[in-house]
């Protein structure tokens, strides 16, 4: 089963990468961009067909390793394909 984990800096935590990219977009005249936040996406192939089990296991993975919950939030998605 394919599981997608998206990790973002929490609101209120300054994202210097996003800020730099926003600055670059503005200098390229993409003035309609109000804000840029950069995160990371981790795609897992998990050996289970039970979505509930996968959700629980991947949450634990996020808490223990994939995200630093002091500064980052995560979301877990199960893409249908």
């Amino acid at each position: 089963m394919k599981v997608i984990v998206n990790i973002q800096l929490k609101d209120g935590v300054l994202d210097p990468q996003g800020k730099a990219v926003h600055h670059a977009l503005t200098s390229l005249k993409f003035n309609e961009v109000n804000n840029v936040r950069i995160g990371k996406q981790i795609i897992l192939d998990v050996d289970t067909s039970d979505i509930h089990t996968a959700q629980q296991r991947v949450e634990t993975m996020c808490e223990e390793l994939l995200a630093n919950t002091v500064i980052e939030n995560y979301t877990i998605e199960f893409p249908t394909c």
Partner: protein
Amino acid sequence: MLVAVIVFPGTNCEIDTKYAFEKLGQSVTLVFHKEEQLPQGTDLVVLPGGFSHGDYLRSAAIAKFSPIMKTVIAFANAGGRVLGICNGFQMLLEAHLLPGAMKRNENVHFISKFQHLKVINNNNTFLKKCAVGSLLNVPIAHGEGSYYIDQEGLNQLYANEQVLLTYCDELGGAENPNGSVDAIACICNKAKNVFGLMPHPERAIETILGSDDGVKMLEGFIN
């Protein structure tokens, strides 16, 4: 004193750290991260600088699962003294031995230069030989050194005298190279036996190389 310097894949400051403590007359053992025990009679564990596990995922995110870290965490929780320098500081944060987290530098660049630091508190083993308010000139070299902690955590750090060093300019005025909260460069835990800092005292050991301010810092651990 026996100093155990832990070596992870990607660590690159272990020899400098060994040199510094040996220059101060101490015995130093390098301990590979796959070991499960510290050498008998270890007085101080140093987690040195570098790029453990290639800094993949986040700096030091993977190092906390190395076999030796279980022992280091138990050692720290039992009151043993632990010093984390640069990548080692990041490990202490990831392992929750120190509060807060480390982010990319605010200017998104890797910064490598001499940096002045101001002593905020010396009521601890590490900085007891450094006067409060005095300045130290010590190299920094990091890409993820922007220290973050929420307001409540910050208040607790101050209340418990856990903020030890801040970045400053050569006159002691405000300067913040990486965007750390309150320009914090060094903290300790509540029990004052675990210390983490981004600057490299082990690289400030010889005047001929620019500064020996690191000597009086590391000497704090020596009785």
